[in-house]
């Protein structure tokens, strides 16, 4: 009986959330009560393999790889219906964007390819200060290595050309955002 009062040597369990990128997203959805309002409000849920409600739960269980194998977060069109309606007030649209960042950094080749659209867009912004729609789409086509992709845009391209809307765009701000991009990059690498 004496032993009962002897302090037990207690080794703290290893921290569960060593994965900072995952922990950031988990903190955004921690209070999810699994009501499913997000799924019911999402205009694109019909095309998702994981319902948003399911995905939040899986993230909280730490099933990062399983979530990164799904295409759900790539189908978010940032309409903010889920964020508006979430009874817990969770930033669900921002969590979808955070998952896109995570998938670009840690995901497989499929995920990295899906991230190209956003990365090419921002590279164009960094170079030109103001996005040049046509130059961006041309770079995107090249980066995707899909010879059929530009053909899909053929009809739209011709329509825009006919309306005088297919031009190089504003180059007055070229290079203007270089210092800000560089600074943000160094701050993000440091943190």
């Amino acid at each position: 009986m004496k032993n009962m009062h002897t302090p037990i040597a207690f080794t703290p369990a290893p921290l569960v959330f060593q994965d900072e990128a995952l922990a950031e997203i988990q903190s955004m959805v921690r209070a999810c009560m699994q009501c499913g309002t997000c799924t019911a409000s999402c205009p694109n849920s019909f095309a998702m393999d994981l319902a948003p409600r399911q995905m939040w739960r899986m993230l909280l269980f730490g099933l990062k790889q399983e979530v990164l194998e799904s295409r759900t977060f790539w189908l978010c069109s940032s309409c903010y219906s889920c964020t508006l309606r979430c009874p817990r007030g969770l930033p669900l649209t921002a969590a979808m964007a955070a998952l896109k960042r995570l998938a670009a950094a840690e995901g497989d080749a499929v995920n990295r390819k899906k991230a190209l659209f956003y990365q090419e867009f921002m590279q164009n912004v960094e170079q030109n200060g103001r996005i040049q729609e046509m130059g961006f789409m041309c770079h995107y086509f090249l980066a995707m290595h899909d010879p059929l992709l530009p053909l899909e845009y053929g009809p739209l391209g011709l329509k825009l050309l006919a309306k005088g809307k297919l031009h190089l765009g504003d180059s007055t701000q070229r290079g203007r955002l270089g210092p800000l991009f560089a600074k943000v990059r160094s701050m993000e690498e440091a943190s």
Partner: protein
Amino acid sequence: MKYAYYPGCSLGTSAEEYDVSTREVLKRLGVELSEIPDWTCCGASAVEPVSRLLTLALPARNLALTERECPGLDMLVPCSACYLNHLRVGRECATDRALPGRINEALGAEGLSYAGKVRVRHLLDVLASDVGPKAVAAQVSHSLEGLSVAPYYGCQALRPFALFDDPEHPRSMEPLISALGATVFGWDMGGRCCGASLMATRRDVALVSVAAILDAAAGADVIVTVCPMCQMNLEAYQSQAHHADTISVLYLPQLLGLAFGLSDEQTLLDKNLAMTDALKGKLRACEAASA
């Protein structure tokens, strides 16, 4: 009334008619615009999937310029994505104390800093709340009587922040449409997402939304939008959405310009991709009736 004007990138290229009609209509309404000098891209909806800090630093740069170059003025933004990006800076800084410091550290790269004083306003908010339907009605020389107009608000002007309209049941365009003599087409698709950039990354999915919106607009003469991305998605992909009848999709200030009797160079209707003969006929009938 005077505002600091942030046109955004689209309005300089594919949405030129939105820029020109906005400037012309506001001039007629006695609203003065001062374009923010040296403005740059806000990152649109592509920046958040790339960098969290850049998501706030890019619009903060424009806000800092506004604060310094246009002190005391609200920032007027016609594009809904630009609007939300700029609006978010203040909203997120209010809930995260470390954020203003980080944003200003980034802006320091250019010797800028932002104190959080700029109020960000959507063009629709300014037209509906500051100008108001009475002042709009006073400028109408060519009543649009008999024209059925479906108001399309899209997403980011309404959500997630409910500032000037009910995000579930938006109505803010209705008094403006009525002020022109036109009829408001009753539907519940005004706040339904158009698919946004999924049109580039997952067109099959975006086309489902576009088809649903266009189908619901059957019976209206024209859809009116306040966002260049919504306008492009609803207008440019009608045949791919297997939509039988084409319908014109105008920007709200273009519709105002028609009722104000502005010139073709001021409304730039010929820049729209889907200007239908049916709408042209209706507009001629309106003109004949009011002449």
